[in-house]
Every structure is written in structure tokens, then in C-alpha cells.
């Protein structure tokens, strides 16, 4: 079964393609973490048994696969049918019999299982026609949801390892480097450092032992692009790493996976074992004479372990703490030997770049940010999930065309990008083309590609506090500016939110932010002030309102916000009465309701449920003023 030559690989690929094509029908059940949580395992089992039962009397050739994330997580479990391309959402095991009967055997579409387009309300049958997918261009995520991640033949049929075959048999290591340089690809894990430049610097370092590492730590709250790639198409990551190792002359590699990603570990483990079995890893890969192998290492469980020097310390078996270093890890990295560390998504793109050429990749994107980028789109948008788009796509396109607009059609206020130490981009910049440069110019960053969409019911002071509190938790505590600075930042924000802010607090925040940026040891501390500085830049008046007027303009900060029912609008539906956790609302059905201010705890539960939008917020301080009068 070992592939011992390029011909053998090509024959195998042709066979795999043929066997995939000859399968009459396929049921693809999404078994990504999101869908698993919705119970997709049970759905897959139900299909397996139903199909087994039926195949006796009906001659339908069926196949059940476990596929990775489709990026549509809140509509799970998802079931895609091939070759018809029909997508069913929210499939429960009790609908399986019906699907087999009606669609697989009968060829009819079940309307109420189809995806409903939130804007038009239309039901869409075809997977590719859903705007969420139609607008995407997938490179790193090319095979996610299309292959069974536990089947190497399935991956090969869809093009996996074709880039590797090309590199090993048609290119010298230097030509591979040149091709990556032509692609213009930049790292997808944070700083956007040019991949080829990093590789060249490592290659130029003396010594003959060097390492390639893959960063799958993904500690940003809410981010899941790397997880989805590792779970849904582990071969794309492995292929990229082997190609990188070949270009660099490395023979050892590690994939560092976040401890909370058990499925990623399992799928990567299966993929590595299969790749070894087929001679794609280990000695004499594909008969080319090149030796290379990969190990999986489970992360230390902290956000900071994703930072390159901390990650390498952790791999060495030491405490995963950043090290002050003024020598690049490409020269002195893991065990003080030359090392290349790239992000999961970076590696996943390499195979495609070599297979289809650097020019092809560079033809997408902007002047200085080439290719496509994966984002996790979450927050107050109608469609959330994982997307991949050409660099330079505007925020408007992402939020409105792909995300389907803001939930409940509320006004869009800002989008937070780049993970916890990213920044907030305000509504005025909706037409901003998203790439490394533009995001940085706007005071935010690409980071790992997180996008949290926020509506008008978002207080920017409160949001900044949320990120600061996360970072305070995750700071390793080694250096003073980050450890003490984040702690004090949170103290100041607590003050602002409670209405205890004083004149001079904004200036204090700004001075502290500058000290942390210049003084911190690693990027965590250096970039931690980003949420602060970007919200100050675009929403300074909200800060001022908290300090001077003791008011939260968005009506969120509890200590500063009061709620009342607008008389004219209330139709006495009684919904708010039931929602209030402290019985502060009085009223009988069909009559005007009122909120008792002395009992109200400003939780906003009534506001969120009122069907007629008849509850309004106002600064609590007005109550006090009224008392005085």
C-alpha cells in the first residue's frame, strides 16, 4: 500500500476519484464540534442503519461520512447530499427515515428541512446557492465539509498531496521557496509575517538539524478556524508541513494542538497514521528519498502558550512562558535550533499554492495581502460561522452579504477584529477592505481572523473591559507592565462602569496603555491596550459620558442605566412581567405595565423580550435628580 513513486501516487489518486464518482449517492453528515453538540453522531448512526436496512430491497448505493465543519454551526446538525448538492439543516434522528424515503429513494426535496434565507425568507435547496457559501472562496478550507477527514483516499481524490508530489518530483527545495515567495502568502496566525521570508531566514541559519512547527493553540475566545481545519481536513495541514520541511531540509515536525481540541487531536492522529501507512510520512516519502515525520503535542492550556517562544518552551517540556529573546527563533528556536513556526491556516494553504502555483494565489487579494483569509464571523449577525474570502473584501460585504445583516435588523455599531487584543472598527468604516494593512491603519488587526459583530446595544466601555478581563486572566505574570498594567486597567474600567470614573481617568488609561505597549515583554502585553486605544479613538464620547454625565449612552452598564415602559406603546402583553427576575414590573394583561424603579436591577431582561420595543433606557442619574427636585 506504500506509495513508492510518483506514478503510483497518480494511479492511486485516479482510483480514489473513480471510486468516489461511482458512488451513486452520498450522505454527508457534519460531525464537527458544533454539529456534534447538536447530536449529529446520532443522526449519522440513524442514516447508517436506515441505509443498511433499505439497501436490501432498494438498490441505492449509499455512503455515510463524518465530515468536518461546514461553518454553519448554529444550524446543525447539517446533512449534505451528493451528488444532488441538497443541504438539510437542523436534522434530527427522527427525520432520517423520511429523508431516506423521500429524498434518497424518492428524489424529492423536503421543503421544511431546507435552509431558510433570513433576509428573503426563501428556502434554498442547493448547498452552493446559499449566499453564505456562494460568496466564499476557499483555499485553506478547500476540502472542509467535502471529504471524510478520517479517509486519506477521500482526501487524495480531492487533491490532497498533489502539491507534495509536485514539490518532491518536479521542484528543488529552492524552487518550492521561490513559489511560496511568488504567492506572497503571509502568516495567518497573527502578525502576518511573510511565509517565504521566515523560511529563508531559517534556511540560512547554520547547522543541519532544524524543525518545522505548526501552531494549533488557538486560544482566542470564540475563534475556531484552526480547529475546523484540523478536524475537517487534517491532511491539508500535514501536506503543507511536509512541503515546508522539504523546502527547509527539516526532518522533524510537531503540531501543537490546544488541549481543549480532542477531536482535532484524534483526526490529526488518524491522518498522520494513514499518511505513514501510505508512505507520505516517514522514511523515503513517495520514494523520493526525503525523510520526515510529525508528532502531535497537546498544548499547555493557556492563551499565552500560542506565543512563539512560550510554545517552544512548552514543547521542550518547560513552563509555557514567553522568553525575552532578541535572536529570531528561525535561528535559535526549539532546543535553540533553527525553527519555523507557522499557523494551521498558513500550512493548510501551502499544498494548494504548490499544486496550483504561486501566481494563482497571488491573483487573489490586495497589493500587500495576497490570497484568501479565514474568519470566524460571530456576534450580532444573522449568519454566523466560518468563512474564507479573498483579502480586501469589504466589511460591508462580510457583514451584510455573507452574514445576512444585523440580528433583528438593529443598527450596526462596530466590529471587533483580531481576537482579544484586536480593536473595534466602527460603522463609518463599513467599506474598509479587510487586509493586514487596512485593519492596522484602522487601529485594529487581522490577528487570527476573529470577527465579532456588535449592534447599537453594545457599550464600548463595557466591551473593552471584557477583553481586558480576559487578557488579565491570561497574562502569564512574568513582566510588570502586562501583569500589573492589565490588573490596574481592569480596576479603572470597573470604576467607569460603576459611575465612579473621575476626570483624568482617560489620560491615565492612555499613559498606562503607552507604557504597556513599550514596556511589555511579549506581544500579549504589547498588544493588550489595542481594545482600549481603538475604542477611545472612535468612541471617546462614550467614555466621557460615563465619567462626566454618569451615563451609559448604549444603556448597558447596569449601575448607570434605568428602564421604563413608554406609555403609548405598551399593549399590555404581559411578556415583560414574566421576564423580570425580581418582580419589579406591575401590570395586568391588556393594561399599561410599569417598572418599579426601586426594585429594578437594570438587567435588561424586559427590554430584550418586549415585542413592541416599548421599553426604553435612560441614565439612572435622572432618577436621583428627580428625587432631589
Amino acid at each position, binding site marked *: 500500500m506504500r506509495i513508492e513513486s510518483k506514478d503510483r501516487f497518480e494511479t492511486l489518486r485516479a482510483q480514489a476519484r473513480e471510486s468516489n464518482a461511482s458512488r451513486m449517492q452520498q450522505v454527508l453528515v457534519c460531525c464537527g464540534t458544533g454539529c456534534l453538540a447538536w447530536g449529529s453522531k446520532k443522526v449519522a448512526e440513524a442514516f447508517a442503519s436506515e441505509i443498511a436496512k433499505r439497501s436490501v430491497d432498494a438498490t441505492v448505493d449509499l455512503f455515510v461520512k463524518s465530515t468536518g465543519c461546514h461553518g454553519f454551526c448554529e444550524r446543525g446538525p447539517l446533512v449534505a447530499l451528493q451528488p444532488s448538492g441538497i443541504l438539510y439543516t437542523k436534522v434530527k434522528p427522527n427525520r432520517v427515515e423520511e429523508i431516506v424515503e423521500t429524498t434518497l429513494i424518492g428524489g424529492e426535496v423536503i421543503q421544511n428541512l431546507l435552509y431558510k434565507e433570513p433576509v428573503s425568507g426563501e428556502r434554498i435547496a442547493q448547498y452552493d446557492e446559499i449566499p453564505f457559501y456562494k460568496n466564499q472562496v476557499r483555499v485553506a478550507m478547500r476540502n472542509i465539509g467535502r471529504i471524510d477527514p478520517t479517509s486519506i483516499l477521500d482526501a487524495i481524490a480531492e487533491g490532497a498531496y498533489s502539491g507534495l508530489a509536485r514539490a518532491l518530483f518536479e521542484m528543488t527545495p529552492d524552487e518550492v521557496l521561490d513559489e511560496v515567495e511568488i504567492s506572497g502568502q503571509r502568516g495567518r496566525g497573527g502578525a502576518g509575517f511573510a511565509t517565504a521570508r521566515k523560511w529563508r531566514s531559517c534556511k540560512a541559519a547554520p547547522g543541519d538539524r532544524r524543525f518545522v512547527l505548526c501552531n494549533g493553540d488557538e486560544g482566542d475566545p470564540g475563534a475556531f478556524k484552526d480547529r475546523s481545519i484540523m478536524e475537517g481536513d487534517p491532511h491539508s495541514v500535514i501536506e503543507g508541513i511536509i512541503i515546508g520541511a522539504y523546502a527547509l531540509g527539516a526532518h522533524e515536525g510537531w503540531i501543537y494542538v490546544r488541549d481543549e481540541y480532542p477531536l482535532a487531536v484524534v483526526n490529526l492522529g488518524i491522518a498522520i497514521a494513514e499518511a505513514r501507512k501510505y508512505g507520505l510520512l516517514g522514511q523515503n516519502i513517495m520514494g523520493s528519498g526525503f525523510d520526515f515525520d510529525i508528532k502531535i503535542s497537546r498544548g499547555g492550556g*493557556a492563551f*499565552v502558550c500560542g506565543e512563539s517562544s512560550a510554545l517552544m518552551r512548552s514543547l521542550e517540556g518547560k513552563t509555557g512562558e514567553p522568553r*525575552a529573546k*532578541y*535572536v529570531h527563533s528561525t535561528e535559535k528556536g526549539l532546543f535553540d535550533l533553527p525553527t519555523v513556526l507557522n499557523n494551521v491556516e498558513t500550512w493548510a494553504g501551502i499544498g494548494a499554492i504548490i499544486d496550483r502555483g504561486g501566481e494563482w494565489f497571488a491573483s487573489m487579494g490586495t497589493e500587500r495581502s495576497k490570497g484568501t483569509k479565514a474568519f470566524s464571523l460571530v456576534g450580532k449577525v444573522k449568519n454566523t460561522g466560518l468563512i474564507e474570502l479573498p483579502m480586501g473584501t469589504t466589511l460591508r460585504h462580510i457583514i451584510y452579504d455573507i452574514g445576512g445583516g444585523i440580528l433583528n435588523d438593529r443598527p450596526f455599531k462596530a466590529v471587533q477584529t483580531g481576537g482579544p487584543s484586536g480593536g473595534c472598527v466602527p460603522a463609518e468604516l463599513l467599506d474598509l477592505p479587510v487586509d493586514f494593512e487596512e485593519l492596522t491603519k484602522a487601529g485594529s488587526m487581522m490577528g487570527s481572523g476573529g470577527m465579532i459583530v456588535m449592534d447599537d446595544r453594545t457599550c464600548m466601555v463595557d466591551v473593552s473591559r471584557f477583553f481586558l478581563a480576559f487578557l*488579565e*486572566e*491570561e*497574562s*502569564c*505574570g*512574568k*513582566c*510588570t*507592565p502586562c*501583569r*500589573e*498594567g*492589565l*490588573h*490596574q486597567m481592569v*480596576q*479603572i474600567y470597573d470604576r467607569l462602569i460603576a459611575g465612579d470614573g473621575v476626570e483624568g481617568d482617560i489620560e*491615565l488609561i492612555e*499613559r*498606562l496603555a*503607552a*507604557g*504597556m505597549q*513599550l*514596556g*511589555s*515583554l511579549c506581544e500579549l502585553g504589547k498588544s493588550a491596550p489595542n481594545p482600549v486605544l481603538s475604542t477611545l479613538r472612535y468612541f471617546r464620547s462614550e467614555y466621557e459620558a460615563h465619567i462626566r454625565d454618569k451615563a451609559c449612552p448604549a444603556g448597558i452598564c447596569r449601575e448607570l442605566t434605568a428602564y421604563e415602559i413608554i406609555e403609548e406603546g405598551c399593549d399590555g402583553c404581559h411578556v415583560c412581567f414574566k421576564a423580570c427576575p425580581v418582580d419589579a414590573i406591575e401590570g395586568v394583561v391588556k393594561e399599561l405595565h410599569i417598572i418599579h424603579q426601586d426594585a429594578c436591577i437594570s438587567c435588561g431582561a424586559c427590554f430584550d423580550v418586549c415585542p413592541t420595543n416599548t421599553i426604553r433606557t435612560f441614565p439612572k442619574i435622572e432618577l436621583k435628580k428627580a428625587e432631589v427636585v
Partner: protein
Amino acid sequence: MPTLKINGRRVTVDADATILDAVRAAGVEVPTLCHFDGLEPWGGCRLCVVDMSQAGWEDDWFKVVTACNHPVDEGMTVVTDSERIIETRRVVLDLLLARCPEAPLIQELARDYGIEETSYTPNPEPDDCILCGLCTRVCDHIGVSAISSADRGWGREIAPPFHKPPPDCIGCLACAEICPTDCIPYETSNIRRTIWGKEFEMLRDPKTGEAVITKEQAEHFAERSGVPITYFETSDTSKRRQMASTFQKLQVVK
């Protein structure tokens, strides 16, 4: 041997020197808190920041780096007192003063930078530990590693494992002596010593009864150096007496 410019002054230092070595060679002072000559630089306190520009960089392009662990290079320019450097040190000291409002060393350093009172919320449970890591590093250095830093972020602290008397501690007091804020409590007498909640019996001079070091310490050093344990029991007074009697026996030859 590379030549650098420190605040406009030229100095030449060894190729393996750090910026801190060069700065000192130039007679310029840069404050440090987590640095100790002989221990590997750590770069944690961030007080020793300086502005640095390397040969070949654009004229006005400077980077903020820590002097204690940054290697020197030919043609490097270092400025130790630019406005942003002073301001960064001020933020660091202001923060440390909030953490340790009662530590004289921090009060003094802060005062040097014009800070009488912290701008931040003072620690409700004042503590003198500035988390400089010197104690744990010196303990690692002598090959004991009895204490370490536990927890992360603001909750970080120096402690023995599980907050119990550390089984590996040899009672040498290196940590307490290196601590810049003297915040590691210990007690010692001719008979007994206590540190980190662990009690030690002292190894006493058979002649004078004076205690020099703990038994565990003597064993640790004896094992590593191959010197017999009796070498460590002789007190300084005993040594002096022995020498005096030897000298008395010597005839002065003219």
C-alpha cells in the same frame, strides 16, 4: 570587539556583552530590579528599558529593548534617557508602587522618577514581593529548585510546592539574601533555622559550637563538590584560631 554609542559616548566592549554591560562601562546608570550578575538575564521587571538603534537602521528609528538581556552589536546606538524611556520606567515604577506601597526600595526608586504616590489602586493586601524571580532563579542556579512561581497573571506568587514546607529546600538562605525587597522571612540561630515553613538543624563547629550552615546545605555542597562534610562544619572563628596558632608556631627568619 564592538564599539557602541551610549548617550553619545563611545565604548568598546566584549562581543558577548549585553547592553547593560556596555551602559555600565560608559559610566551611565540604568535601574534594574530583576538582574543579578552571574544569573542568566530574565527580562521580567522591564525597568532597564533603553532606546536602541542598530547600524544600518534608518536614522531616527529606535526600538525599546531591555538592556539586561540584549546583545551588543557593532555600531549600535543606545539612549538611556529619552522621554519615552523615562515615561515607560515611570509607568513600571508607578505600577510596582501600587503593588508594593510599603516597600522602601520601590518607594525610593519611584521617588527618583518623581512619583510620591501611585496613580493606581494600591494593593489592598500590601506585599513587598515584586515578582522579580531572583529567588527562584538563584535556587535553580544552585541546583535545588525548591521554590517556584505559581499561578499566572496578577495572581502569580512565589511559593514552595502546594504551599507546604518545600522538601527540596536546603535552608541556604540564598533566596532571602538575593531578594531586593527583603521580603522572604526567615529565622536563624546557632541551633535552628526556619525558612519557607521548614525547620533546619544547624551544623555546628565541634570546637566553638558556632553554627555556619544547615546540615542539608552541607550535604548538598559536599555531594556536589566532593569535599568532605567536615569541611563545612568549621566556623570562621575556628579557622582564624587555627591560623593564629599556626602563625605562632612559625619562626620568623631574617
